[in-house]
């Protein structure tokens, strides 16, 4: 090919035409030069314009449009209950935005959007779309179906931004346990915070928290029992016009918390009032003078010290005077009581004498041993520290023997009672724990003989016909035993006799306690006029309802052996 071209060029050079050309070029030489210069000027002008424009555009800030920078919402693991029911999960929601500058016909957009979103406000949206702003939100958190339908409309100038949101299917039922997350999906309370503290926060910070790799966190909570507890305390709150109520169901053998609720509470899906003062988790974050339920510990202490036995007698015929205090009995019998009688008649004088017998140091040591005076260690971050007198004097020891002068959390009281029922103190947990694991960490705190005697006393107190204060807590088939507690609340530095804090501490089944249940109710009013408002009349029936409804779900087999001995089947 190249050789072909060369040959042609040779021919052209050789031809005579080149001479003519040269001549004509010389004739018009001046004009030619001008034209070249003009062409150069024109092209230079064009390129200069283009370059100038480029520089100008380069300097110009890009037009503001599109949604604000995406917020990194970190993934969180699901939280499930012990049966795998979801308590908290991440869901993706889409939010609809518009870029008004790119919208061609606002009327058309509104008309089409209203076919999918009938509740859209036409006028407001019209103003938004006509505002000429770069970006406006039209609707947050659409359902996937709505998102799909809007996408099908094919409207220009509108778009979606997906956002991750924490969703709690159980709503308020387990609100205090599961906790809350903030807008960046970081745990701020409850077990959500605990999960963050276990290293999730670091994972999220390093960007490694990928939804798929996060295993669900299983809790020891049983959603069914949790619902029953929540339902019963909510009903009780209304029935007794109380200011608060709460309950906890604790597995005495493993220390697992199966259910725990406190009302008033809040809806975690809309937690606008979650930080109100009266909506705190009273079971773990509130401290109370637990009242007569503490007599369980006083009695156990007397028995455990070896100084008293079930035959011991305490003179409760006269009120006890200590300094300027006079200790009286609420259900005074005015005679010498045996130790079981002190317990079932809830005698303050008798309990005071029991504490006196052990001594101040021994008393404090025993309560410390059962963990009632120290801050509870568990997964839940919201745990209050118990209060006790700075310096224990005799009067303190005596008032504490019947539950006044020392405040502790209801959860701790239940944990202590579980230790009395099994002999081993187990730190409570919201995560599953097997009996083998519990056996390793549990430490013996009271003698086996004390455990036996305490079981007997609990059962005696809830048995009909003994005059015990807890008979209303009895549930046929489940062998409930327990202790009432009616504490007078301190109002303006004095104990008010019309404001009470009631509790009922129980265990079941009494022949081998598996669960400890504690109910509390704050400032209950009588259900009907003329009826009292002591613990046996409100906290005890609450507890009985909880056990009646949840006993079977907890895996306790009803037995009627030493009661009526009759089941439905045997009639048929």
């Amino acid at each position: 090919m190249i050789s072909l071209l060369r040959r042609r060029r040779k021919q052209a050079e050789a031809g005579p035409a080149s001479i003519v050309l040269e001549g004509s070029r010389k004739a018009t030489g001046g004009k030619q030069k001008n034209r070249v210069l003009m062409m150069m000027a024109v092209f230079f002008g064009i390129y200069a314009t283009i370059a100038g424009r480029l520089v100008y555009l380069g300097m110009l800030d890009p037009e503001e449009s599109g949604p604000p920078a995406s917020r990194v919402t970190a993934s969180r693991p699901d939280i499930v209950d012990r049966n795998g029911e979801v308590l908290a999960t991440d869901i993706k929601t889409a939010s609809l935005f518009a870029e008004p500058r790119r919208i061609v016909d606002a009327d058309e957009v509104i008309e089409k959007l209203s076919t999918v979103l009938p509740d859209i406000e036409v006028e407001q949206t019209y103003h938004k779309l006509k505002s000429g702003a770069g970006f406006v939100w039209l609707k947050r958190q659409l359902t996937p179906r709505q998102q799909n339908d809007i996408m099908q409309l094919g409207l220009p100038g509108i778009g979606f931004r997906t956002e991750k949101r924490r969703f709690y299917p159980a709503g308020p039922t387990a609100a205090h346990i599961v906790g809350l997350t903030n807008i960046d999906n970081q745990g701020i309370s409850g077990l959500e915070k605990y999960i963050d503290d276990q290293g999730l926060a670091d994972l999220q910070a390093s960007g490694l928290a990928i939804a798929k790799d996060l295993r669900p966190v299983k809790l020891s909570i049983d959603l069914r029992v949790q619902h029953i507890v929540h339902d019963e305390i909510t009903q009780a709150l209304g029935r007794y016009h109380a200011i608060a109520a709460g309950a906890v169901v604790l597995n005495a053998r493993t220390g697992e918390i199966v259910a725990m609720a406190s009302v008033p509470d809040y809806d975690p899906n809309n937690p606008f009032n979650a930080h109100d003062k009266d909506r705190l988790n009273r079971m773990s974050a509130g401290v109370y003078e637990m009242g007569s339920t503490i007599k369980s510990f006083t009695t156990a202490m007397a028995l455990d010290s070896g100084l008293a036995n079930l035959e011991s007698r305490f003179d409760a015929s006269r009120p006890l005077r200590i300094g300027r205090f006079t200790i009286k009995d609420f259900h005074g019998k005015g005679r010498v009581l045996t130790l079981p009688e002190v317990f079932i008649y809830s005698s303050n004088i008798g309990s005071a004498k029991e504490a006196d017998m052990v001594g101040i140091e021994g008393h404090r040591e025993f309560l410390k041993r059962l963990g009632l005076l120290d801050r509870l260690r568990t997964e839940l971050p919201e745990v209050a520290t118990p209060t006790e007198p700075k310096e224990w004097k005799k009067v303190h020891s005596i008032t504490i023997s019947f539950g006044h002068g020392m405040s502790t959390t209801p959860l701790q009281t239940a944990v202590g009672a579980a230790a009395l029922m099994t002999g081993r103190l187990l730190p409570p947990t919201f995560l599953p724990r097997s009996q083998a694991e519990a056996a390793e960490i549990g430490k013996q705190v009271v003698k086996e003989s004390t455990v036996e005697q305490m079981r007997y006393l609990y059962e005696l107190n809830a048995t009909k016909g003994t005059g015990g204060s807890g008979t209303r807590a009895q549930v046929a088939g489940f062998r409930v035993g327990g202790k009432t507690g009616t504490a007078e609340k301190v109002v303006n530095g004095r104990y008010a006799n019309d404001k009470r804090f009631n509790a009922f501490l129980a265990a079941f089944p009494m022949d081998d306690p598996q669960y400890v249940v504690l109910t509390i109710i704050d400032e209950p009013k009588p259900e009907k006029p003329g009826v009292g408002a002591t613990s046996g009349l409100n906290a005890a029936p609450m507890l009985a309802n909880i056990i009646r409804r949840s006993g079977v779900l907890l895996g306790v087999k009803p037995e009627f052996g030493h009661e009526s001995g009759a089941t439905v089947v045997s009639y048929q």
Partner: protein
Amino acid sequence: MFRTSDIVLIAVMVAAAAFTYKTKHEAEDHQVALRKIEQQIRFEEDTIDLLKADWSLLTQPSRLQKLWQTYEAELALQPLEANQIVGIDELPSKPLTIEDLSSQHLGGMADSRGAPSDGPDKIVTGGIVQ
């Protein structure tokens, strides 16, 4: 001029180019398909998450309780009582039923079929009809 080997090489080159182009194009097509499927998977996964949340919402004990209260009359459900729970070992044994063999027709001489039907013979051993 053109040698045969040149033509062959040119042909090979063109074929190779065509093949490369086709392969690249196909790869791009597959990539697009893959991206589409991946997006679909993501969408399905999100849907699964959502349906799970929906399911747990629909099976909430509190919701079921409300439904029960609303349809109490139709459902006629009652709370389970403790005395309705028994273990398998506590079930009473099945009542003994003795099959009535005497009413079966055995045939032969003793068969009462065809005889005047006023029931079985009233004569019992040692008894006399009066």
